[in-house]
């Protein structure tokens, strides 16, 4: 049932497990060599006790960008965090594979139309400002 999620996650060397603490704040901890069991959707995770994580809703994010902040890709598995003995286990409950670029664009256009549906006048982007900032950015030393 979790074969696709396990296969997609295997493409990343690291992932981040996200949970909630006792005051209901989210928290995240990076995991090295994450392996999701394709049969059970479970994955052992290491979360230091000092962070105060509690059992409950959780997720796992894996993402990549290169040194120039490009070639972006990411995936998110929703689930829950369970305590089993002395260890934390992430249990997957939902995985939707990342959409392709055209689907991302279509969704963004739909969301934009909805966000602007009742707004008049429609905002106009100051592209002259954007172009000036791009020129200035070329002179940023050691970004």
């Amino acid at each position, binding site marked *: 049932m979790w074969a696709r999620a396990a296969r997609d996650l295997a493409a990343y060397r690291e992932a*981040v497990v*996200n*949970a*909630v*603490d006792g*005051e*209901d*704040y*989210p*928290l*995240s*901890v*990076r*995991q*090295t060599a994450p392996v999701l069991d394709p049969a059970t959707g479970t994955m052992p995770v*290491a979360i*230091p*006790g*000092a*962070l105060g994580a509690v059992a*409950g*809703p*959780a*997720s796992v*994010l894996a993402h*990549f*960008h*290169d*040194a*120039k*902040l*490009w070639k*972006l890709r*990411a995936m*998110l598995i*929703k689930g829950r965090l369970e305590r089993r003995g002395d260890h934390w286990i992430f249990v997957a409950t939902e995985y939707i594979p990342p959409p392709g670029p055209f689907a991302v*664009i279509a*969704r*963004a*256009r739909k*969301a*934009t139309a909805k*966000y*602007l549906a009742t*707004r008049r006048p429609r*905002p*106009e*982007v*100051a*592209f002259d*400002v*954007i*172009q000036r*900032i*791009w020129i*200035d*950015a070329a002179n*940023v030393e*050691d*970004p």
Partner: protein
Amino acid sequence: MPTTALKFAIPADAERIICRYRTCEFSTLAKNGTPITRPMGARWLADGRFLLTTSIGMPQKAFHIRRDPKVSLLFSEPMGSGIARPGAVLVRGNAVCDDRIVSDSSSVPELEDYLRENIFARQPAGRMMSSLVGRLLAPSYYMRLLIYVTPVRMDYWPDRNFAAAPEKIEVDRVG
């Protein structure tokens, strides 16, 4: 670097991580309490708050924050940062995201700084988003919602042993 106006002390290596890592893993809470986490660029402001932005074409995180302001940022991906001894910093805090669409980036000075230094200078290929093709495909890309995060707790891993207990950074009231 924001330290001159900060009201709390932070190790220099932790500050470098926050300021130089290209992305953080930013978590908001869905209606059922599930942390929804995305890689995002974040800028640490002089008053100790963090600035992030999202396009109105991807407003879910803004909706989450308006319902529940509790968020976290984990700076743990060193790719491109040039930091020789990478560690990680976890920030937990309270966010605000007003329903104000910023389409003139010069109208908010810290937004212009964020775009110039945190995004454009670090992501040169992103310039295609302001090309004719980019404007046609994603006309709302530069219609931004601003997210400000006030930290309430920060934890710091000086190295990449994430199973070890992090060092707690005492956070005074900021903002």
